[in-house]
């Protein structure tokens, strides 16, 4: 009996030591052992059984709490990293912004964990999504956190997409500057997949105050193709006195190419220009604050969010 008691207490002592110093996996297996010894405790006499049961139940409870906290801790670095590296574009809760919403049960591109990890690692070529230099473990942590975001409620929009579509083509006259599946003008950004790229709040802001968030940086210069498609407004005065305004298609040290609102494309050697102005932060898009009612705005946002590239 005394031996059993000593055995029990030393087991308890060993378990606490292991638990405090070991990793999550080891803690789990130790807990299994503990549960087995708990079952073994049934054969003891009543008094000892009571003591051991109290002792073991307490430690089991303690262990469960520890495990829970450990699991929460595992996600914590992911959230911290997400706030540091992703939230600027995807929103602090992954609700989307300049980048698409990540609060989706099924992500559009990172459909599985390995795909999502690869995507974070390599970025998405041809988009504003850069590759990450973080270590594999950290990318894994971010991916885990992003997948957790999808368990939250998806973004709800109250508008009606069908009505929004009508407004897009009539009152909004959006096709005058934007293209949808190859139809419309190429003066402004193509909207065929805009629902995959932007969040609802960002779209709403863009409609009300188009200059609130215009891409500023050309840090993402792509060798071989040139500047990223950021629709920078430029105004030029040629040496022979012509003034031309448009969006920049490309630029390098010696030349610049631009597209006028009418669709006409111009290419200049910079030596042919006497003035070149770049209107960073400006947009030729008018505000739709006075055009759409609040309900109509909701409808257009719902329509834009439904544009996901599929046929």
């Amino acid at each position, binding site marked *: 009996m005394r031996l059993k008691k000593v055995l029990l207490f030393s087991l308890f002592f060993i378990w606490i030591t292991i638990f405090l110093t070991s990793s999550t996996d080891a803690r789990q297996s130790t807990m299994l052992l503990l549960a087995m010894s708990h079952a073994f405790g049934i054969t003891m006499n009543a008094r000892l059984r009571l003591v051991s049961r109290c002792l073991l139940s307490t430690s089991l409870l303690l262990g469960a709490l520890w495990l829970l906290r450990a699991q929460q801790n595992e996600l914590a670095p992911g959230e*911290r*990293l997400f*706030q*540091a*590296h992703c939230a*600027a574009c995807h929103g602090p809760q992954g609700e989307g912004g300049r980048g698409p919403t990540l609060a989706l049960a099924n992500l559009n591109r990172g459909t599985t964990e390995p795909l999502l990890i690869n995507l974070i690692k390599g970025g998405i070529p041809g988009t504003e999504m*850069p590759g*990450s*230099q*973080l*270590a594999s*473990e*950290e990318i894994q942590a971010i991916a885990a956190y992003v997948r957790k975001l999808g368990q939250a409620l998806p973004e709800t929009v109250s508008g009606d997409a069908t009505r929004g579509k009508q407004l897009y083509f009539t009152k909004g006259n959006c096709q005058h500057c934007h293209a949808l599946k190859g139809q419309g003008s190429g003066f402004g950004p193509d909207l065929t997949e805009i629902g995959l790229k932007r969040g609802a709040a960002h779209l709403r802001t863009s409609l009300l105050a188009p200059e609130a968030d215009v*891409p*500023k*940086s*050309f*840090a*993402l*210069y792509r*060798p*071989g193709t*040139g500047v990223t498609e950021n629709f920078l407004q430029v105004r030029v005065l040629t040496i022979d006195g012509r003034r031309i305004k448009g969006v920049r298609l490309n*630029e*390098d*040290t*010696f030349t610049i190419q631009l597209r006028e609102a009418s669709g006409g494309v111009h290419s200049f050697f*910079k*030596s042919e*220009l*006497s*003035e*070149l102005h*770049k209107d960073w932060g400006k947009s030729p898009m008018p505000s739709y604050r006075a055009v759409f009612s609040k309900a109509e705005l909701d409808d257009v946002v719902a329509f834009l969010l439904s544009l996901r590239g599929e046929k």
Partner: protein
Amino acid sequence: MKTPGEITQHTEITKQPEIYRKRERLYRKEAKRQRGKELERINLPCHFAHSILCDEKAAVAAVCCLAHSFRLFRHFRVFRNLAFIALLALPVLAQVPYQRILNADQEPGNWLTYSGNYQGHRYSPLAQINTTNVAKLKPTWVYQVRDPGKVETTPIVVDGVLYITEKPHVVTALDARTGRPLWTYRRTTPPDVRACCGTPNRGLAILDDTLYFNTFDAKLVALDLHTGKLRWETTVADYKLGYSMTAAPLAVKDKIIVGIAGGEFGIRGFLDAYDAKTGKRAWRFWTVPEPGEPGNETWAGDSWKTGAAPTWVTGVYDPDLNLVYWGTGNPGPDWNGDERAGDNLYSDCLLALDADTGKLKWYFQFTPHDVCDWDATETPVLFDAAINGRNRKLVVMANRNGFYYVLDRATGEYLSAEPFVKQTWAKGMDAKGRPIRLPNTSPTPEGTLIYPGLDGGTNWQSPSYSPLQKLFYVLARDNNGQIYFKAKTPYKPGDPFMGGGARDLPGVESYAVVKALEPTTGKQKWEFKLYAPVFSGVMSTAGGLVFGGSTEGYFYALDAATGKPLWHFMAGAQIVTNPVSYLVNGKQHVAITAGLSLFVFALD
């Protein structure tokens, strides 16, 4: 805000015709003088051999002459033997002994070492192409490589043949007149090499009748100059531990000096010298000292074992002092210095080593305890000048940390440092040249905005020094701020060991810029802005020009005195390399690689 490549620079060219006419006269005179000198310098047998090798008319004439003399003198054994000896002597003449590299400036028709001369000048004394006629520069031929990836080689040009490396392990000899390959050496790359940043190869070294190049799997390979056949190869390090080699070797006397890359893999860096004939290692200098050696105390605990300090760009040599100057790279891990408290010697240093023994003469550390990956591997440049009325032997470096340093190259004494791009990390230098760091300029888990960003104020691309203009030229990146962040990084042999990274801050618009600095002070004389970020070096010439490349694909020439653009050519692919210049049949050429091609230009 000024736009990159601003327009005002373009229009002023036409405003000063009389100055340019005067300069044209000057250059014509200089070019004529040089052509004369060129002929004087080349001794007759050498010139004879050169013309036979490079000109088929001369070759036919020579063969006819020999055949004729055989017929004429077949009964005269002595003459016949003499003719035989002359024939055998020909290939021997097309050699590049140490003496020729030493006096590289005396034969501007060739490009005998990575930086053009031992002093790291990347300066061509040729003046046929100059400010008055560069606008008429035209491509002569283009050589396209077969394997994918961009070519970053600096060609070696000897007596009418260009030797280039192609990515990753191909060496080709090209006839300088036609661009046709004479031979190709090809070797396979192990499939399991690990690269932090591509697998480039940046060129060769030549000594006597042997070519030397480094492989990505950390081998030094020696090839027969005339046939491209393998002479020997030596394993420099174990690539499975993250070691690699990308730089051109440096041939000094009877040794081949090679640096190592792998600063992103927790290697322990070194600089090696090998016997040029046998490939046997002559000396090794570990850039991270082990316990018991001076400097080991600058590493906490065992952190020296993964201390990196690679030597991944070709260094320079001073024959008078017999010192090799070589820059070292970042300590490992790059962005997380928590486990390596201390100055971390000899990371981010300039080393002055005895060329015969590899013994350290002096060192200068630019960025003690670096946490921003500011390698000090930029090409050092040697010249002599008066500072405060005293003549000095100098070594200068435009450093990745954003400062231009002037040191005494005999003693390592710090003389001055001047920022040449926007920097936000140092208040300045103390009397010994140690930076006075500003607070909050280290990477954090959340990220810290620091100028210059990861690619640095400048990088591995070559600077140039013109003894004619007395100016130092550097391809810099300005207004270059990035968010540096640190992360945990457990060390696993052969795996990346970086501990963080850097990302762009939207709205921070960095740009590439060619800057001309006063060489003794670092004060800016002029600048020429380029649009996109660039990793292409510059070359200045006696024609008053600075040649350079751009990410956009431009090969361009600037006025070395003013920075005005005088000529450009759209090569259609990224230029990530350094230009060279040489003579073919007495005519000046310039060459640069762009994308997968080598472009060669000359006047009509």
